[in-house]
């Protein structure tokens, strides 16, 4: 019981000290803000701030313009590149088609000649067969 009383008395004292400290700190804080504000309010105003702000603004605008120009330029370049690639592909395809078209009649002529040769060699009339054999024998002798 006695111990509780002593403890609560100690707590009350600590709280009072804390309150006093808090009040003092708040008063000092108020004084500090007041004197800072007064000094800042009455300070000579120059162009430094405006210049710094305008400089920042200019840099911001310049960066923004560079970014915008870069993205637009990039887009245009990419589009141009794609169009060129498409045109090149189309030209290549046309060239290949032309080559193919050139090669096709030559191959057809060769095929035709081969077909004629085989037809000529195969279709010997039956009546000429004994004569052909004789010619072969005479040549061998």
């Amino acid at each position: 019981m006695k111990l509780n009383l002593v403890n609560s008395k100690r707590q009350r004292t600590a709280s009072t000290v804390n309150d006093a400290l808090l009040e003092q700190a708040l008063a000092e804080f108020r004084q500090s803000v007041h004197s800072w504000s007064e000094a800042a309010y009455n300070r000579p105003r120059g162009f430094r701030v405006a210049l710094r702000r305008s400089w920042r603004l200019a840099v911001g605008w310049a960066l923004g313009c560079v970014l915008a120009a870069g993205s637009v330029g990039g887009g245009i370049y990419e589009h141009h590149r794609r169009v060129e690639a498409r045109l090149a592909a189309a030209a290549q395809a046309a060239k290949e088609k032309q080559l193919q078209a050139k090669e096709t009649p030559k191959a057809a002529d060769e095929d035709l000649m081969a077909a004629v040769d085989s037809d000529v060699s195969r279709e010997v009339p039956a009546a000429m067969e004994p004569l052909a054999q004789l010619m072969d024998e005479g040549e061998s002798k």
Partner: protein
Amino acid sequence: MAAGAQAKPMTAETAEEIAAQDFARVVEKHRPQIFRFLLSSTRDIDLAETLTQDCFLKAHRNWGYFRGESSAMTWLMRIAINLQKDHWRNRRMQFWRQTRTNSVDLDEASEWLPSGERSAEQQLLARERVKQVWKAVEKLSERQRTVFLLRYVEEQDLTEIAVATGLSEGTVKAHLSRALGKVRAGLGGER
């Protein structure tokens, strides 16, 4: 002659002139206080000046609508609080910008203390306490900070704070109590 002059009806131009004079008096009287509140809220001299200008510009535009239900100071403070809120909201949206670009650091803000008749040691201790309070104030929520600064820097009463912030007195009390608790804890952490 004098009676004739008194009976002369007030023209619109005269009324405007009187209003302008009234407004000029209001600006002269309350500008330092609005600047101080904005400076303590932002810790940025340039920003506080800009917001103070904006506040009085807005007040001038709406001066005709001011009905005097609250004091001019409370009305101006309300405008200043809203401007400050708008500023931080816009700043958050502009995420690429560094917030608090020109804000003064805690050490510099704590430097300001009237010398009075204190010893160097006492001044040092006072500066340290002021720094602790700044640290605690920095950690407060926007609302708590506003209420705290209005109460303990501008020394406004709860009713005025409630009108200026648009909160109920109960809410103001609750915010103030929490803010004070945090400042107390901040000061306790010092030792």
